[in-house]
């Protein structure tokens, strides 16, 4: 049995038909499918161990606490954080970014300061910084793109100045699919005393990440884009920064002592985890990390690279396809292929592909400023994961070749 057949068999949904066709799932950038092992871990938590962690001195509550805290340790090792209390569980990458913007941003960015982000950021790493800048009278600046859609080297060098307080960039853009030079950006920002927030939503699922090596100050990602359930996300922050930050959400579990007029906050990580947390989600995340470690990032990267190169080469044979972020000169392409079909709106492309069982994304991909920059109203996106096969790409190409015909346009 070849590898992808073997992996696909682990994912119940990948074996289900879409209408009359087998499902070809190519929207992994939006969310990935879940292996049975992860689904079972969540079910097992609810049918055998459910209790409110940290709140009861009885066995079940202790077990639930263990599951939750073990997930934290597993996550720490997964991204190589120094301490497990530097891992804060959130709902998703968006909440993690909001936590940083509200807690760190609003207390460290002032009038006349600057926040620097890339034009290719997802709205989740853009709108919160716009808000911080508006509230504080600071300026939001952008790193624009080179011809080949990589981040402008010149902007990285020139736009980080002593005025810059925060640099927030994705390690991989969810539209362009190019790996950004985050380590270099961090080094440059640290020279000027700025902190760097790295959005790892599209990198962590696909490549080995080491937050200490990268030296990121904050690093965020969502579980659901890496085989885990929806509703569990991660914020990594350097201990010292997290300790000095005010809490974001307040209430139960994030306190040590509460008096009528005063509260002592709990130490990390509890300080940033107010209220009952998503323990079932953490159990799923933990199982997902085990699964990914077993597959191994070496394999994941190799498989995705092969699929992507194959897809791009087939698409380049179709002269009515326009590609974005697919001509990087730096060997830094990941499994995200963004494109348009000449004279066809992305939503029609996606509807027609859907009729062939091929699920892709169409729209602005939560990156409207990038769409405006690329002068596109919207785009289509196919995004691969290690369980996709060459046959999936063939079916995708076959469906794509039918699009213009359905609308009565020439091939």
């Amino acid at each position, binding site marked *: 049995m070849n590898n992808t057949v073997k992996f696909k068999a682990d994912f119940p949904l990948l074996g289900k038909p879409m*209408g009359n066709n087998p499902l070809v799932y190519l929207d992994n950038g939006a969310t990935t499918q879940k292996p049975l092992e992860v689904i079972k871990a969540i079910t097992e938590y609810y049918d055998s161990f459910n209790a409110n962690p940290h709140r009861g001195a009885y066995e079940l509550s202790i077990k639930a606490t263990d599951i939750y805290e073990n997930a934290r340790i597993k996550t720490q090792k997964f991204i190589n954080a120094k301490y497990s209390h530097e891992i804060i569980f959130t709902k998703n990458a968006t909440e993690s970014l909001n936590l940083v913007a509200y807690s760190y941003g609003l207390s460290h960015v002032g009038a006349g300061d600057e926040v620097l982000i890339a034009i290719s950021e997802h709205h989740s790493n853009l709108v919160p910084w716009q808000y911080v800048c508006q509230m504080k009278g600071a300026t939001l600046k952008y790193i624009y793109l080179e011809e080949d859609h990589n981040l402008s080297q010149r902007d990285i060098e020139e736009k980080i100045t002593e005025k810059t307080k925060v640099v927030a960039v994705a390690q991989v853009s969810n539209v362009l699919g190019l790996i950004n030079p985050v380590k270099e950006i961090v080094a440059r920002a640290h020279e000027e005393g700025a902190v760097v927030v790295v959005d790892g939503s599209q990198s962590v699922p696909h490549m080995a990440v080491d937050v200490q090596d990268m030296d990121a100050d904050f690093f965020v990602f969502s579980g659901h884009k890496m085989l885990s359930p929806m509703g569990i996300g991660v914020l990594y922050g350097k201990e010292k920064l997290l300790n000095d930050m005010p809490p974001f959400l307040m209430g139960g579990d994030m306190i040590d002592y509460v008096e009528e007029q005063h509260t002592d906050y709990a130490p990390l990580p509890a300080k940033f985890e107010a209220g009952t947390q998503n323990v079932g989600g953490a159990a799923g995340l933990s199982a997902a990390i085990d699964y990914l470690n077993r597959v191994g990032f070496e394999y994941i990267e190799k498989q995705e690279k092969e699929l992507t190169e194959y897809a791009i080469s087939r698409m380049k044979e179709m002269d009515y396809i326009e590609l974005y972020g697919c001509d990087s000169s730096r060997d830094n392409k990941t499994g995200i292929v963004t494109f348009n079909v000449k004279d*066809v*709106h*992305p*939503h*029609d492309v996606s*509807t*027609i592909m*859907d*009729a062939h069982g091929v699920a892709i994304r*169409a*729209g*602005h991909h939560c990156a409207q400023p990038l*769409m405006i920059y690329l002068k596109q*109203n*919207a785009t289509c996106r196919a995004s691969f994961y290690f369980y996709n096969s060459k046959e999936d790409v063939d079916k995708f190409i076959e469906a794509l070749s039918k699009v213009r015909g*359905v*609308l*009565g*346009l020439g091939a």
Partner: protein
Amino acid sequence: MELDSIYTELISEHSRSTEHKHHLECPNMSLKGRNPSCGDEITLELQVEDGYIKDASFVGIGCAISQASTSIMIDLIKGESVAKARHLANLFLRMIKREELTEDEEEELDEAFALKNISNMPARVKCAVLSWHTLEEAFKEAEGIQ
């Protein structure tokens, strides 16, 4: 889902048609309609005199369904009274909401009736109703001003 029940010849033809896709020389009503999630964006222009739509056109970008629906709508309302246009918009929106229409009502919708199958595609309903909603909004706004 059967593609040819959605992208019928009539709909693809209308989606490519440029007959109504231009600015009017002297519109006295103009309203923008947007579907932020898809990126459909149209501006509807009307020249209304004495309660009649003397002329109508649109500009903008969108998918085949939103473009076809707009083109068909303009065909239907041009030369009609405002009251009739509003009545047609009401019928169209009811059809897309899968409410039962009488045979006469279906006939009134004429070519717009070809968009009925979109009501089975929740992801595309917004595209089909964009121009009709914009038309309704334009009249509502005008009412408010008077």
